[in-house]
C-alpha cells in the first residue's frame, strides 16, 4: 500500500464461535481506524459434516458474530467485513480468508488496558516497507501513542548505518503519513537472541507490531520468531503479512496438507 492510497490498512480478527473470548474495549477502539475483517469460525469435528453444523448452529453463530461486529461499529470502525465459516481447520480458514480479503495483518489478541506505547521490531527496509504504512494507519489518534522502533544489529551492520539507512527512511515515511516524529523512539540493540530481546522490550509496551518471517531452517526447527514471541507475550500482537505471502501461505498449506 502506498501513502497516497486512501483506503486504510486491513487487519484480520478471528472470532471463535459460538462463544468468542471477549476483546478488550481499548483494543477494539485501537483497531477501529483500520478496515477490520472479522472471521467468525465455528470448529466442526471430523465426524460432522460442516453443512450439518451450519444447518443447526448457523443462526446462533451468526448472532454471536454480529454482536462482535456491532462492537467494532460502535467504536467507529467503517467498512468492516464479517465472514462466518464452519471449518474443520481454523488454520486453513484463516489462511484462505487472509489471502482472499487481501489482509495486511492478522491480530493475535491479548490484554490491553490502554494503547500508549507501541513496539515495532524491524529486521530491515524490505520488512519495514510493509510494516510502516500499517503502523501509520494504526496510530491515527492525534499524537498520544509512542512508537518504539527496535532493530537487532546484524554482524555486518553498524549502529550509525542502521540509523541512517533504516530508521531514517522509516521515520520519514511515518511523518509523511501524519505520525508525529517526536513520539518515535529509535532503538538499536546487540543480542544473540532477538526473540528474547523483543519479549523483554514488550514488557514495557502495550501492543507489538511484527513482520511475518519466511519459513527457514530455524523456523521449522524452533517455530518462527513471531510464534515464539506471541507465545511468550501477553500483549496483543499484530503480525504484518509479507507481499510474497501467497508463496508462504501455499507452502504452509501444503505442509498442513501433508500431515
Amino acid at each position: 500500500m502506498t501513502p497516497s492510497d486512501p483506503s486504510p490498512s486491513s487487519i484480520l480478527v478471528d472470532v471463535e464461535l459460538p462463544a468468542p473470548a471477549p476483546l478488550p474495549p481499548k483494543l477494539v477502539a485501537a483497531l477501529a481506524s483500520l478496515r477490520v475483517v472479522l472471521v467468525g469460525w465455528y470448529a466442526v469435528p471430523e465426524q460432522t459434516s460442516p453443512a450439518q453444523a451450519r444447518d443447526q448452529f448457523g443462526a446462533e453463530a451468526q448472532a454471536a458474530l454480529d454482536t462482535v461486529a456491532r462492537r467494532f461499529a460502535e467504536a467507529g470502525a467503517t467498512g468492516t467485513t464479517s465472514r462466518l465459516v464452519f471449518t474443520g481447520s481454523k488454520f486453513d480458514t484463516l489462511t484462505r480468508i487472509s489471502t482472499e480479503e487481501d489482509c495486511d495483518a492478522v491480530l493475535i489478541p491479548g490484554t490491553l488496558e490502554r494503547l500508549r506505547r507501541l513496539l515495532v521490531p524491524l529486521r530491515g527496509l524490505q520488512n519495514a516497507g510493509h510494516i510502516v504504512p500499517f503502523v501509520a494507519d494504526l496510530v491515527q489518534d492525534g499524537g498520544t501513542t509512542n512508537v518504539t522502533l527496535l532493530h537487532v544489529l546484524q554482524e555486518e551492520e553498524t549502529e550509525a548505518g542502521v540509523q541512517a539507512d533504516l530508521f531514517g527512511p522509516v521515520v520519514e515515511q511515518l511523518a509523511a503519513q501524519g505520525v508525529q516524529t517526536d513520539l518515535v523512539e529509535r532503538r538499536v540493540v546487540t543480542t544473540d537472541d532477538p526473540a528474547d530481546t523483543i519479549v523483554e522490550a514488550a514488557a514495557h509496551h502495550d501492543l507489538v507490531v511484527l513482520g511475518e518471517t519466511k519459513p527457514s531452517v530455524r523456523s521449522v526447527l524452533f517455530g518462527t520468531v513471531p510464534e515464539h514471541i506471541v507465545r511468550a507475550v501477553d500483549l496483543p500482537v499484530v503480525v504484518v503479512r509479507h507481499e510474497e505471502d501467497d508463496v508462504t501461505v501455499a507452502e504452509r498449506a501444503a505442509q498442513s496438507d501433508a500431515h
Partner: protein
Amino acid sequence: MGQESTAPDRTDAGPTDAGDAAVGDAARGGELERTLGLTQALAIGTGTMVGAGIFVFPGLAAGEAGPAAMLSFALGAFIALLVALPTSELATAMPESGGGYYFVSRALGTLPGCMVGLGQWLGLVFASAFYLMGFGYYLRDLATELGLGVPVPVVGMALATAVLLTGVSITGTENTGDLQNWIVASLLTLLGGFLGHGGLDVLGVFGREQVPEAFFPYGVLPVFTTAALIFTSYLGFVQIATVAGEIKNPARNLPRSMIGSVVLVGLLYVLTIFIGTSLLGSEQLSSLGETAIVNVGRAIAGTFGAAALLGGGLLATLSSANASILSASRSIYALSRDDLVPRSVETLNKRYRTPHVALLLAGGPILGLILYGRVEILAEVASLLHLVMYGLICVALLVLRRADPDSYAPSFRCPGHPVVPALGALASFGLIGFMNPLSIVLGGLILLAAAGWYLIYARSVTLSELSS
C-alpha cells in the same frame, strides 16, 4: 474509505466458486471450509478398504479359488475401476456430501435414491460388523502369540470394540484424521516391505522353493464367486465421494484419490495372494482362516514378521471399522437432509457437535450383526448393497450424459463413455449373480424394505432434477 458503513447483521456471501476452497452460501448463513487434501482423501479410501482385503480375506479366498484367487482380486479391482471412473465424473459435477446416494437420487429419482441411500448405510453397517469380527480374530491370535492361557472370546471383543468406537465417535473432539493418515502410511510401509521381500523370496532370490500347486485347483467358476465374496475389499473408494463437499480442489483431488486408492489396494491384494499361496500353498492358507496373513509374515520374517502383521491387522481392521461407522453416519445425514428419514436423525450433540443420533444408528445395528456372527454373509450382503449402488451410479452417468442438463458441468469426464459406464453397470449387477443365495435373499429383502420405507414414509419427496 467510509463509503460503506457496517450493518451489524450483514452477512458476507464470500466466494461462491465451488471449485475454490469454500462453498459460500449467504442464504443459509456461513461458508463451509474444505479441509481435506489429496493425502487425506486417499487415506479415507485406502483406510476403509485395506483392512478387509489383506487382513481378513486371503485365507478365505484361497480356500475358495486356490492361487486363482489373485484373479478374483484383480477382477474386483477392474470392476471397482469401471465404477470409480463414472463416480469421479459425477462427484466433480456434484461435489456434495452424500456420494452415490446423491447422484442416483438426482439422476434416477427418489425411489432408487432411497434404496441406494438406505442400502449404503446398511452396507457400511454390515461391513463394519465384518471388520470388527476380523479385529476380534486378531485379538484372539495376539493372545495366543503372547502365550496367554485365557481364550479370547471373538464375538465379545468385537461387541465391546463396536461400543467403544461408537462412543469415541460421539464424544471425541480430538481430530483423528492425522492418526488415520499415520495408520494408513505405516500399513502401506509395512505391506510394501513384506510384499517386496516376499515377492523376491517367491521368485527364488533367497533360494526358497515354492509350494507347487495348480493355478485353478477348483476350476474357473470359483474365481467369480470369490470375486463376489471379496468385493467388500473395494467399498472404500466411494466413501471419498460421501465427503466430496469437504475436499479441497475437488476437480483434481476427487478423481485422483478414487482411482488412485482402487489401483493401490488392488495391486496390494493381488500381490498378497500371489505371495501367500506361493509360500504356504492355498490349502494351508485356507486352514489359517481370517488371520492367515500373520503366518505369511512368519514365513517371510519369522516371529518378527508374525508380530508386525498381527499389529498391522489390528490397526487395519479397526481403522476400516471406524471409517465405515463414520461414513454410515454421513449417508444417513444425506438422507435426512432430503427428508427421506426424519430430520431429527441429523441432530448434532450440543456439547460435542457430533451427529450422535446418526452415529448410534450406525453403531447400534452393528451389535446385532456381530451377534448373528456369520462374517462371510455379512461381507457379501455389504458388497451386494454397494454393487447395486455402483450399477445405478453407472446408469446415472449414462442418463445424465444423455439428458445433459445445463447445470451438469463435470470437470473430470469419464473416458471411454458410454462403454465404461455400461460395462461398469453390467459387471456390478453381474457380480451379484455369483453370490451365495442367502446373501442374495438377505440383500434383496433389505432393498425391498428400503423401497417399502419410501412408499410409506417418503413418497411425497421429489429429488430428481431431470423429472418433467
